[in-house]
């Protein structure tokens, strides 16, 4: 029986059957000891767990019995981030969780076709889409008992109910052409950079397109920082703000169901010929471990990406009530670009497909900051561009505008290399080329992207899996650079402005090893 995951807001406000059964099951799972594979805490620890943090947050006590080290090693801290395994791993994780929740529901005489709902916060037709579903905020269930979906450590922006900023639910990632990241993570790819290992030291730790926005940003926006708290101190962060606590918040699962749905929507964009990787390194990876999940009985399920591609077949056996492409393509990226440059419409289309389907191009750095940049509150930085590279680039832009048959000029990317800090909840808007005394909010066309520092603490740990190299973020700035060129800018340098996107982010303090600008193709 193929079960249907439904839009949570489509189920109606307040308590509906789906959420009520979910709440009851969450309560059942929370009552189980952490040594039980089907307990709430064991399942959350599969995503991430740290005993000190869990004790501080009251998740476990100092004397709480934990599973054996062998079991912890096998199941816990598996979450895949900054990797092309991000989407398949979370799909398997969700499926295992859903099966265990359903088992708890059916045991309590609930519906056998129960499926995890998803939170479609990007739905323009739903006025409340960006507001956290109210069942997650209500103090009690209809029977007057405590509501297990309500979490105290869900701070958001400090107001209730939590409402997401429109820029946090952007679906720009659906415009990404390819699933895996390119060479040097330029572009980062829809599904994330190619990594060999569970946590890949052989490559940079760069967020993939969908992982970066909306996934990471939603995590930080929901978790947030305690009112009056220090955004650089993990003790003041919300559960959703850190990978080691995120899955303890019941909203986590609805958020990830939506991310999983967006993966499917991206694949259904047949016009753009989006496809999953066919490399065996992805289908059968990662190289150093198998993904493993508990089942509702005593068994376990090991899987790789290959095993979660067919959602309709067992053991997944689910679909979404809305699998349409959320943002129908009105004008392709290449067409839009060539039109703005003044070339004939349609010219960019053919060229773009050739680039995507053909061999991957190698990105080239054409500019960088002169050393690390410390970001705290609204921060400006300058990137010096290589004059000979930009001279060639400007010439190509002019020729492309004049003759539609020329190859598409180089695409341009901003790479924030080695972001280090402890402010996982920080969300920043990154602007390019905003005049010095101007308000960035008046220059939305210069917004390169919105970034979250979700996961930065672990990535900054010198003895963590990435040896403290931090995380990287790649933003495409092609259209901004084109606009600067058209406005007569000589492109000798780029001014970058980091603007806190939430009040909590204003107090964040982190560093970026290097701001780099790369060109791709052209």
């Amino acid at each position: 029986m193929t079960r249907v995951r439904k839009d949570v807001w489509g189920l109606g406000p307040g308590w509906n059957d789906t959420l009520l059964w979910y709440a009851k099951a969450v309560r059942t799972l929370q009552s189980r000891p952490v040594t039980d594979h089907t307990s709430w805490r064991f399942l959350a620890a599969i995503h991430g767990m740290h005993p000190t943090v869990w004790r501080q947050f009251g998740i476990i006590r100092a004397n709480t019995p934990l599973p054996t080290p062998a079991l912890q090693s096998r199941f816990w801290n598996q979450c895949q981030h900054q990797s092309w395994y991000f989407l398949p791993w979370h799909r398997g994780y969700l499926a295992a969780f859903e099966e265990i929740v359903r088992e708890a529901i059916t045991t309590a005489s609930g519906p056998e076709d129960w499926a995890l709902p998803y939170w479609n916060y990007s739905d323009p037709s739903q006025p409340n889409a960006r507001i956290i579903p109210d069942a997650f905020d209500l103090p009690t269930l209809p029977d007057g008992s405590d509501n297990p979906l309500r979490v105290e450590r869900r701070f958001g922006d400090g107001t209730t109910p939590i409402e997401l900023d429109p820029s946090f639910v952007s679906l720009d990632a659906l415009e990404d052409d390819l699933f895996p990241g390119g060479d040097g993570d330029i572009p980062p790819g829809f599904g994330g950079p190619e990594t060999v290992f569970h946590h890949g030291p052989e490559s940079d730790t760069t967020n993939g397109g969908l992982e970066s926005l909306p996934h990471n940003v939603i995590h930080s926006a929901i978790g947030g920082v305690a009112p009056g708290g220090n955004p650089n101190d993990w003790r003041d962060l919300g559960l959703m703000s850190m990978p080691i606590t995120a899955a303890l918040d019941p909203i986590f699962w609805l958020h990830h169901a939506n991310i999983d749905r967006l993966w499917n929507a991206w694949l259904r964009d047949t016009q753009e010929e989006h496809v999953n990787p066919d490399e065996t390194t992805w289908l059968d990876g990662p190289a150093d471990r198998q993904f493993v999940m508990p089942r509702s009985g005593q068994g376990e399920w090991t899987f790789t990406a290959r095993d979660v591609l067919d959602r309709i077949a067992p053991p997944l056996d689910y679909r979404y009530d809305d699998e349409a492409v959320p943002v129908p393509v009105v004008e392709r990226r290449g067409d839009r670009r060539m039109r703005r440059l003044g070339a004939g419409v349609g010219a960019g289309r053919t060229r773009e497909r050739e680039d995507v389907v053909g061999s991957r191009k190698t990105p080239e750095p054409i500019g960088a900051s002169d050393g690390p940049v410390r970001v705290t509150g609204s921060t400006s930085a300058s990137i010096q561009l290589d004059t000979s590279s930009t001279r060639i680039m400007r010439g190509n832009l002019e020729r492309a505008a004049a003759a539609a048959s020329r190859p598409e000029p180089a695409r341009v990317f901003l790479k924030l290399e080695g972001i280090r800090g402890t402010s996982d909840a920080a969300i920043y808007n990154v602007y390019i080329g905003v005049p010095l005394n101007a308000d960035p909010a008046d220059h939305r066309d210069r917004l390169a992207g919105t970034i979250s520092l979700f996961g930065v603490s672990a990535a900054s740990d010198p003895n963590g899996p990435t040896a403290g190299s931090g995380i990287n973020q790649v933003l495409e700035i092609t259209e901004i650079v084109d606009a600067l060129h058209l406005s007569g800018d000589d492109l000798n340098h780029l001014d970058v402005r980091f603007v806190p996107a939430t009040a909590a982010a204003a107090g964040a303090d982190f560093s970026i090893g290097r701001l780099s600008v790369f060109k791709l193709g052209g």
Partner: protein
Amino acid sequence: MWPRALLMVALRGPGKSLLLASAAGWIVMAWLVTDHRFQHSHFTELWLAMILAMAPPLLLREIGRLWRTSLRRLRHLTIGSFLSGYVGVWLLAGVVLSSILAWVSVDSSRIAVAVAVIAIWQCSPARQRCLNACHRTPTLRLFGTTAQWDSLRYGVATGCYCAASCGPLMFLVLLARDYHLVVMGLVAVVTTLERYLPARRPGWRLPMLRGRSIEWPDYSYGDAGSVRYAP
């Protein structure tokens, strides 16, 4: 599976050139050994051939990063600066190891002590710190002499951590004498695989064991608050 996956990554960019250089090093090494030039009097040529054979696979990540993050016209110069620093450190290490080798190899009990010290070092947290440091991504400036200076420093730092983590094993190779090539091959495989395993929390352990998820990050804070879960 993962050596194959790593090889696929290795063959990108300048990886092919590095592996070719390594192959050349192994050919020279084989010639030196068949020509019985593994005596102390031939230490310099032996040491240079060992560096050429063993170092390139260890540097796939670093050279690849320099290739990707340097201005196109400066790539070779930047990589040259890095290699100057890296090879310089290994040459100095060769001088030190040569002296130790001369002192150790005269007596089998000294050899036994040296092997024991190497075995302890291989399992030590200090060595793991050096391996972890090899994973760390430095900040490299892009333009002018500062770019070359950063690359040189990167090469020296990588060389130091590399010599500290792999140097003792290289010493073991030098001690092997009649089995030089075989031991060198084994050491090359071990050091290369180890180099690409994820960083781990420093601690006493047998090398090459798989990382455990319960090697927690380096937080060190207080105790529990209120609990709403079952104990």
